[in-house]
Structures are given as structure tokens and as C-alpha cells.
């Protein structure tokens, strides 16, 4: 976690008294003081600050405490540790809309780097949400609603995950006023890592929160499957061998049957005569064994025997041992065939239980991931340069590095500057909104000073980094998973090209 915020669990709902200035406000939990700069976050006084600074090195930078004037500061900022000014809290209108609020320069490894810091108003923006679950949440293309308003839809699924595409200009400004407002509010909360309850047409009710497991129809998802049913057979066949005569791994996509599967044949297992509903794709792999749902392996199955057809009497024999298990190992059932070849529930044996637990152990925790996606429009780029298209070219040419709140932004190929960034890599509460409605998100462009001049940048407005840093800036530690925006390796010019 890049911030030093306390976990929400140790909540002290008490009012606290702020000692940041002589007013000494009492501040209730979740509220801010008269200045709107300090707030009570679960009993802890935190800054909600104009500008967030990512600071390298463990040691805090010492400022002159009596600083009557910013110019009096000793400049140790740069020598002591490198500081990257993020756009969180930079403000689009204060003190100036154009050019971008802060254009700061700093000498990094002998190269004079310029970072243009702004908070962009994004009407063209949304989030892509990856929800690690095999459960059926709704059909692809189904509408996702919050407060009854359409905010996006279910898109094509990915490995072990369902995907949502939310927001975008059509929901923000193309529909009714309420639709726009609700969409903007839902995006804001998702981006600021808050929980949002959404309902999918003909699907589930779901609570999505970045960095947390999804809660689907009131049930918190635990695990992401280790693989499809067929893959699970392949991975665990050897461990089952000798302990069981047949294993069926129930999966909404590809249900696996051990003795028919290549892995079972490789172990020279004999066919069991167990027959499966659904469409056989290749030996031991079945599609559509049931309807999608929130039961076993993302199907609607509650009783796994419902996917079996009567066993083949020419092959099956009484006393055969059958294991049925889901792709996450969370559900399993063990059976022994009776005289009529009907599976009867029996107590599972320790070796089989151990494999079930191992499957569960190999499943990763289910998470919701929220990626903010937005396009830097002409007016935002105009805050950086007098010739906005040159900024786009500079980004494409890898002369300009784009980050959002200091986190690496993926820049889409093609026209414009359309970026995508994981909100978990950004400082908390990096996002705001305007009633237009549109999201306000931080975006920084970092490049060499000479390149900034070439692309028509507002070079007259460059300020040394020390002059924009104030002692009341919010400071966050660098996020170890993110590249340093000022690292020369981010730029084409270190690779020999000019």
C-alpha cells in the first residue's frame, strides 16, 4: 500500500482534534476540518492535500519549519532524495488552468527532466474491471446497473475471470442526466477503491471493490480456479492414480473426465463407463455439462450427480470409486457404485482429500481489479504544449513518459493519448469529479527539457521542483512495483537513438 493509512478495521469513531493550525478544529470520523486539508480517517489525522509527492528514500525531507517563503527552503529535496511530483491534487483551475498547474524540472542523472503535472478532466473515460470468478455473473453484453441506471456491460470473459466495461462517454454524457451522474459516481468510487454494488441484467447482484474479492449474490468469492476442468485433470492425474477409478472435474467451460483424458490414458487407467451429459469435444473433455451459474465450477450444478448419465453396464462394475470435484477444489464428493451401478455417497479417503486441498491451495485468491482508462483530450494536452499533437507524437516516440499519480500508465497504440492504469498502483483517493459529469484524474508527462522545448512546451513556466513542494504536501512512499517515472531506462534516448 503506497499510503500510510491505517486499515479500516481499527476504527476509532471518535472525534479528533487537529493540531495543524491554531484553529484546532474538532474533526469527526470521515470528515475534514475547516481548511479541507486535514481529515479524520478512522481516528487518524490525514492530509487531503493539494499535491501528492512520491518521495524516494525512507527519510523524510527536512524543510525549514519557519518557512515564511518557499524560496527560503534549502533545496535539500533534490540532493537528499529524488522527489516526483504527482498530479494528485494539482488542481485543474487553481492557481491557473493553462498551462498545466505545475511544470516542474529536476536534474536526474545529468539530464534535466521536466514533469508536467495536471489533473485532467476526463469525459472520455471509464474502467475495465476484471473479476476473478468462474461463477456466471450474467451473459456477455448484459447491462450492468447501479441504482437502476446503465453504467456499462459485461464483456468477453478472460482466463478464470469475468470482465466488465464500465463508464465511457456514452454513459457519462450520452444518456439521461441521472445515468451520467450515477455512472460518474460509480466510476469515482471504483477508482478510489471503494465498494460499489451493481446489478447485472438477468444476472447477479455483485459488490466490486478494487483489491478485494467480489461478493456475488451475497457470497464472498474465495478462490480463482487453477485451470479448466481438463487442465486440472492434467495437473493432478498422477496424484489421483491408484486411489480412485474415475475423477470428473466439473467446470462450466471444459469438464474433465480422468480415464478418457490423455493424462489418464498415459497412466494406463482403464475406462470407467461413467457417462457425462454435455457435448464431447475431444476425449475426456466436455462442453456445456450444465447451465452457467453460481454452483460447482461456475455451473448451476448443486448436486454433481445431475451431470452424469447412467453408467455403461458393459464397462462399469460395482464397487468402482468415483470422485467429483470442482475446478477450485472447494466442492467435492466421493462415491462408490452400488450393485445397480448407481453412485452412492461414501466417506472420502485421506489421499483424495489431500489432493482436493492441494487444488484449493493452488488457486489464487479471487480479486477485483479496476483499471482506469481515459483519453487525454486536446485541451488537456494544450496545458502541456502549444501544439497538442506533438505531445501525442512524443509519447509514441517514447520521448515522453506518461504516469498517473506516479503509476506507470499503459498508452494504447493509435491516435490520441489513451491510457490505462491500475488504480491499486496509484495513491489512495487520487480521483475526483466535476458535475459535467466527468472524472478528474491525475496525469503526468515526464520528458527531457530539450524535448519539452521541441514539442512547443510552456518552457517559460518551468519551476524547479523545490519551489512547488511545500511542507504540507501529502507524501507517499514510492510504490516498489512501479518504475520511477524519471528513470532514464523509460526513454528511447538511453537506447542510443536520438
Amino acid at each position: 500500500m503506497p499510503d500510510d493509512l491505517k486499515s479500516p478495521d481499527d476504527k476509532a469513531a471518535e472525534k479528533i482534534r487537529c493540531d495543524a493550525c491554531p484553529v484546532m478544529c474538532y474533526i469527526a470520523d470521515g470528515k475534514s476540518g475547516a481548511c479541507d486539508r486535514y481529515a479524520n480517517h478512522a481516528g487518524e489525522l490525514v492530509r487531503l492535500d493539494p499535491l501528492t509527492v512520491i518521495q524516494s528514500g525512507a527519510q523524510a525531507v527536512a524543510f525549514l519549519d519557519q518557512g515564511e517563503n518557499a524560496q527560503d527552503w534549502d533545496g535539500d529535496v533534490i540532493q537528499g532524495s529524488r522527489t516526483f511530483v504527482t498530479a494528485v491534487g494539482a488542481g485543474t483551475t487553481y492557481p491557473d488552468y493553462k498551462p498545466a498547474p505545475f511544470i516542474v524540472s529536476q536534474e536526474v542523472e545529468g539530464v534535466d527532466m521536466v514533469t508536467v503535472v495536471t489533473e485532467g478532466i476526463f469525459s472520455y473515460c471509464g474502467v475495465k474491471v476484471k473479476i476473478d470468478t468462474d461463477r456466471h455473473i450474467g451473459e456477455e453484453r448484459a447491462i450492468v446497473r447501479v441504482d437502476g441506471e446503465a453504467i456499462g456491460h459485461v464483456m468477453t470473459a478472460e482466463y478464470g475471470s469475468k470482465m466488465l466495461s464500465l463508464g465511457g462517454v456514452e454513459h457519462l454524457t450520452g444518456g439521461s442526466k441521472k445515468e451520467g451522474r450515477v455512472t460518474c459516481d460509480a466510476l469515482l468510487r471504483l477508482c478510489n477503491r471503494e465498494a460499489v454494488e451493481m446489478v447485472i441484467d438477468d444476472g447477479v447482484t455483485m459488490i466490486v471493490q478494487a483489491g478485494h474479492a467480489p461478493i456475488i449474490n451475497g457470497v464472498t468469492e474465495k478462490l480463482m480456479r487453477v485451470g479448466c476442468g481438463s487442465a486440472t485433470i492434467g495437473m493432478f492425474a498422477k496424484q489421483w492414480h491408484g486411489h480412485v477409478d474415475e475423477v470428473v472435474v466439473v467446470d462450466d467451460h471444459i469438464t474433465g473426465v480422468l480415464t478418457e483424458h490423455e493424462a489418464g490414458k498415459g497412466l494406463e487407467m482403464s475406462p470407467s463407463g461413467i457417462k457425462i451429459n454435455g457435448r464431447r469435444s475431444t476425449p475426456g473433455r466436455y462442453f456445456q455439462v450444465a447451465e452457467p451459474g453460481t454452483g460447482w465450477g461456475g455451473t448451476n450444478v448443486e448436486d454433481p450427480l445431475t451431470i452424469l448419465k447412467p453408467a455403461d453396464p458393459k464397462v462399469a462394475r460395482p464397487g468402482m470409486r468415483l470422485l467429483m470435484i470442482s475446478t477450485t477444489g472447494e466442492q467435492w464428493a466421493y462415491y462408490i457404485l452400488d450393485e445397480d451401478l448407481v453412485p452412492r455417497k461414501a466417506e472420502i479417503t485421506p489421499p483424495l482429500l489431500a489432493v482436493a486441498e492441494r487444488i484449493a491451495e493452488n488457486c489464487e485468491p479471487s480479486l477485483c481489479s479496476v483499471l482506469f482508462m481515459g483519453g487525454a483530450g486536446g485541451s488537456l494536452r494544450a496545458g502541456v504544449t502549444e501544439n497538442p499533437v506533438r505531445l501525442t507524437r512524443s509519447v509514441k516516440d517514447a520521448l515522453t513518459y506518461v504516469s498517473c499519480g506516479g503509476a506507470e500508465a499503459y498508452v494504447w497504440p493509435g491516435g490520441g493519448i489513451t491510457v490505462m492504469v491500475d488504480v491499486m498502483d496509484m495513491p489512495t483517493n487520487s480521483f475526483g469529479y466535476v458535475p459535467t459529469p466527468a472524472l478528474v484524474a491525475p496525469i503526468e508527462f515526464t520528458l527531457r527539457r530539450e524535448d519539452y522545448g521541441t514539442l512547443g512546451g510552456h518552457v517559460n513556466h518551468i519551476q524547479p521542483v523545490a519551489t512547488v513542494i511545500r511542507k504540507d504536501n501529502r507524501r507517499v512512499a514510492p510504490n516498489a512495483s512501479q518504475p520511477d517515472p524519471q528513470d532514464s531506462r523509460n526513454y528511447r534516448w538511453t537506447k542510443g537513438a536520438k
Partner: protein
Amino acid sequence: MSGPCAVILPGDRLHLQHGPIDLVIGVTGDRRAAFAAAQARFATILDELVTELALLRRLVGDAPLGAVAGMMHRAVLPHKDGIVTPMAAVAGSVAQAVLAAMVAAAPLSRAYVNNGGDIALHLTGTETFRLAVAAPDGTDLGRIAIGAGDPVRGIATSGQGGRSLSLGIAEAVTVLARSAAEADVAATLIANAVDLPGHPAIRREKASDVQPDSDLREHLVVTRVGALSTSERDAALDRGLAMAQNMAARGLIEGAALFLRGGSRVTGLPGTDISKGKTLTHA
């Protein structure tokens, strides 16, 4: 505890900040002397107010001792309504006090002190002050030009867009008055009056639950405004307009512009191009 700080902003403007006070100052004239005077006056201003804070947060009554506190008291006195406290004029009064210190210290043809939207003006000769009025989302709503010959020396804006609590639903109410302190309290009270009492889409909370030591105590402040029909919006604006016209008739203000959800009302601002009923669009 952090003390007052000062920074020069682009455009030769001085930014002074201490606690909840942010001033942006511009002058035409002896800038160095003016800024030095502003900084010197600002150094103690918050401490002066804090010594009488308890009195200033109570209903307007006994006169306080401090100079800025006295300015607040005098500005609020004509508006005595059983709710308002001298704090309704704090921002304008601070701006006015710092402006006065600069004007006394240096020959200036023009100066302004902007305290978070509450602005104190100094104008001489042919100097003018052009004010852009923006909706809370930054949409340009028009310009107001003030010349040295006009009586206006204070401009204040209040409403949901600001950081003070409001009893009303106005997005912004901009008031022009003879002083910043008078403009400040008037803007606060007109913004409070833009309201639809009992409307289900308006969420209200006790001021003390939002800010435990708010001078609005147990009064219900607006924390969220839901959907309003055009006629409801107009009704709310008309309530505010009635109060503004009443203040103008009593000579307490020179003019006011009220904004809510794309609707507006204007009184006493001849020669301005504040848009009327203009639909807000994204810039």
C-alpha cells in the same frame, strides 16, 4: 503546528496560507513594499481571530475586541436573524484587513486580495477589475467589470461549490458590495435562502455532525442535492432573489448573481454580461 507561509505564484502574485486561510494577492504599484506589508499583517491574523473564536462562533451580540473580529461583527450586525454569526464574514474581513495593510504601506493604483473567492478590491483613477464568474465545474458564466468610479470594493461567492457549510442549495451566489466583509455575509445568507424546504431530494445533516465546532451548531446544512425539476430550481432561485433584492433595497449590497443547475437570477448588476439561464456545457 504549521505557521503562515508565503509563495510567489506565476504572474507576480503572492499566495499566503495559514490553516484554513488561503490568500492570492495581486497589486499594481510598489509590489515589493505591498507584499511585505501583506505578509507582515498576515503573520498574526489567524492567531488574533483564534483568541476570540468562541465569541465569533456565537450569535452576533457583544462586540469583539480585535480589529478583524470587529469588522466581521459590524458586517453581520444588520443581518441579525437568530442564526447568523460573525463567522459569516470571516473570509471577506481577512481579505479586507490584508488589503488595508498594503494600501497603507505603499502607493498602489490597483490591488486585490482573493480569499478563496471572497475578494477585497482597491481601485483608483481609471483602473478596473474584471471578474470572471464560473460555475462550480469551471464553465464560464460571464464577466463583471468594476471601475474605480463604482462603489463596489468587495466581491464574495458562496454556495455548495465552496468549502463552507451552507443551509441552502445554491451552486454559487456572487455578491458585489461596498466591502469584502459585507459581500461575504450577504453571499452566505442569499445562498442559504436558495432552498426548497422539505424537498425529498435534498439531504441535510446537522452542522455539528459534519463539523463538530461549526458556528451553525444544530442547524441543518445541505450535504447533497438530488434531481430537481426546472420549476423547482426556479422556485429555489426566486427565494434567494427575493432576499438579494431586499438587501439591495436596504443598501447592504450593490448586486448579486445566483446560480443553480444551469439557471440564474441577477439583481443590480447593470452592464454585465452574466448569462441568464444558459445551459452549462462541458468546456
